[in-house]
């Protein structure tokens, strides 16, 4: 077996000279320390993205992006297409795990201060991908054209419409008109399967090139150690094999979720019916949705909801620019404020999500 693999490697190497690339990757090291586990979530996110692309293409073979046919085509996929139910359920679960994995990856990078010099661009591209992933979720949620997705999109786009100045045109742009209609579905379908994957792939490419060029970030406490004292493992094949091991486990989890909790379809959207009680957005928007509920009607001269959106916008901007204002970490010093802010953000998201879930 081993000989066979070596023969195959040699055969490939003779033709495309991969030795150099393997040696290059073999010279790249991943720091080994007590928090090394978090490094894997970048790879898990990538794996889940690949699953999304593959299952998304499979769904695209049967999905029809019009308000007359969308629901029926998803129903057809679920009931008539061989393993269609499995592909759709994996796509739906993988989407959720993808966003969860990005959340974990982003916070682990934040707490390790891996965004600091010289990796500011890696952080910024990562944050953009996080926003794109959220928009992936928002646009994909409407595609089955069922009751819940229809009204959740209406609520979601209403919130976007409350943003001062750019809100109303943004809302019209998302909806493709005044209200959520077939035009919204066509538009979000276009975003979901063409525009977003295109942009995402480009930014992902930049993100990965940056990682390859700059290497894996070491935590602050390791930087101060001598080179000999640093524990590390080669990126290829050691880290990559471990990555592969985790991917297989994630695949197993996905399969169990898809079989035991298949994606539901519900009832077809009826724009003329009243919204079902307790309509909620997807879990990753829930903390924002719940927070906006707590804002009073008016705070001084400004509407409560508008103030909430502005605050979230400001927090997001602060988060995006953290490599630029956290000068202490850039200098290699510990910055406790960053940790406190991060803990607050995590607690805030978890508590508000739970409150939104149970309310």
């Amino acid at each position, binding site marked *: 077996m081993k000989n066979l693999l070596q023969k195959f490697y040699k055969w490939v190497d003779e033709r495309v000279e991969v030795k150099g690339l393997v040696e290059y990757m073999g010279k790249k090291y991943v720091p080994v320390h007590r928090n090394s586990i978090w490094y894997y979530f970048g790879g898990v996110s990538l794996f889940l993205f690949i699953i999304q692309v593959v299952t998304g293409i499979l769904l695209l073979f049967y999905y029809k992006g019009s308000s007359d046919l969308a629901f029926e085509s998803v*129903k057809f996929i*679920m*009931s008539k297409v061989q393993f269609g*139910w*499995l592909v759709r359920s994996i796509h739906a679960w993988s989407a959720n795990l993808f966003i969860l994995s990005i959340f974990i990856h982003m916070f682990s990078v934040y707490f390790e201060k891996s965004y600091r010099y010289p990796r500011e661009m890696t952080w910024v591209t990562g944050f953009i991908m996080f926003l794109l992933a959220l928009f992936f979720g928002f646009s994909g949620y409407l595609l089955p054209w069922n009751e819940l997705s229809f009204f959740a999109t209406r609520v979601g786009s209403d919130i976007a419409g409350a943003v001062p100045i750019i809100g109303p045109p943004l809302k019209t742009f998302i909806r493709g008109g005044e209200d959520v209609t077939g035009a919204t579905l066509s538009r979000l379908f276009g975003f979901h399967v063409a525009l977003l994957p295109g942009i995402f792939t480009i930014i992902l490419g930049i993100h990965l090139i940056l990682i390859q060029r700059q290497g894996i970030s070491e935590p602050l406490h390791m930087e101060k150690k001598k080179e000999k004292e640093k524990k590390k493992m080669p990126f290829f*094949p*050691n880290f990559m*094999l*471990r990555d*592969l*091991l985790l991917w*297989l*486990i994630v*695949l*197993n989890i996905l*399969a*169990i979720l898809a*079989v035991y909790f*298949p994606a539901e*379809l519900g009832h077809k959207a009826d724009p003329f019916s009243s919204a079902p009680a307790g309509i909620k957005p997807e879990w990753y928007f829930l903390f924002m949705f719940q927070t906006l509920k707590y804002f009073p009607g008016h705070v001084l001269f400004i509407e409560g909801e508008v103030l909430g959106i502005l605050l979230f916008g400001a927090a997001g901007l602060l988060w995006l620019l953290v490599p630029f204002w956290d000068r202490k970490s850039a200098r290699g010093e510990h910055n406790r404020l960053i940790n406190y802010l991060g803990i607050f953000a995590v607690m805030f998201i978890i508590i508000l999500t739970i409150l939104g879930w149970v309310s």
Partner: protein
Amino acid sequence: MKNLLTVLIILTLCSVTYGMQASSKDQCYNCHAQLGGEPAELFKYDIHHKVGLSCSDCHGGNRNSDDMEASMDKKRGFIGVPKGDGITEVCIKCHASEEKMAAYGFKIPTNQFELLKASVHGGLSTNGKDRIVQCITCHGAHGIVKVTNQRSPVYPLNVPKTCSKCHSNSVFMRNYNPGLPIDQYDKYRTSVHGILNSKGDPKPAECASCHGSHGIKSTKDLNSSVYPVNLPSTCSKCHSDKKYMAKYKIPTDQYEKYSKSVHGIALLKKKDLGAPACNSCHGNHAATPPGISSISKVCGTCHALNAELFASSPHKKAFDEKHYPECETCHSNHLIITTTDKLLGTSKDAVCTKCHTQEKLPKGYLAAKDMRNMIDSLKSAQMFASKLIDEAEQKGMEIEDEKFHLRDAHQAVLEARTAVHSFDRKKFDEIVVKKGLSVTTEVIKDARASIDDYYFRRKGLGAALIITILLVIGLYLFIRNYEKEQKNNL
């Protein structure tokens, strides 16, 4: 006899003396009676004249003056012939006042004008100023007598003619309601009510008996006594009154039975206006019980398919020969209860065995038995399919298409119930077997496949998990060995 003659002479003298006294005080009547003419001639019999009212009470002027100019002086309130609503205004001076009516010794209602105003006749006429109907339109002007007086135009025997003056006049009626038929009077004369009425019997229903008098509403008005939901109780006012109907020797339990029937429950309790009221089967103005051979036609106005199938069935001829009242033979008439499959077949609740027994007409007996068995089989299959669909649904399987197809099976049951009326095994088979059972079998097959798929998914997952776990273990061991080798090489 002698005593009776004496009483009559005294009464005649009294009335002549009273008449002389009354007329002697009423100079209007004195002159107009001498001058002659219809008004004065009619007024002689008028109830108002008899209670001492003068021409001037309606026309104004001075009743005590024998001078023509003084008596008809406009300064003394003379209005001449009242016109339009002015006519009714004159009547209601007394007829809307309980006190005035009591002063003349009458205890009749005083709300006629209020009722008229709210009635369909109280609307504006084509001139846009006055009401369509004034009091005199129905009651006449100078010869008004009590309603119970046979001379009255609103005496029961005269009401149809009075109403038809307008309602049978196409030129007049098209001004107000061109869509309203004008043949009510002609139809009425062919009805049991109308025939008895024309024979001089005042008890059978005439126009006012059903529609009311002063407060007549449009038939589309919820408060109309002939609005579909109110109609059965309107008919029952007479038809459920044993004493009133005794003379006609017909049952008086129709309303009681009807209100318990499937039609009665639908109309009276569920307010389903599509359900038949009395007039749907008996007709309204031409009300009469449908003839034996036309019952299926009457029922067929709603139950069209059943009637059509029955008409071409062998039962039609047989029933006609035996004078069986078609639909009514199996379903009864006023007390038609919700039809169930129990009526079909040879069990004790079945109606087929009334005529078909194993000994007598055995072919029909066997056909009835088979048809019942087939419809029962279809229902059982449908129930089984429904159970499987529920099971698949509870397992989280997508089974909407099968659910939709099961509706076809349900439709086949409904169609089979209709097809019974053809009393034709072949037609029945086509629906039950070819349509119903084939669809149900297909649904059962798909539902089972869906349930099997559920278990297949779990088994497939198990297999996939085993393969992946083996891969994980293999990879783990490979990494361990590889790193061991790496360490040894260092």
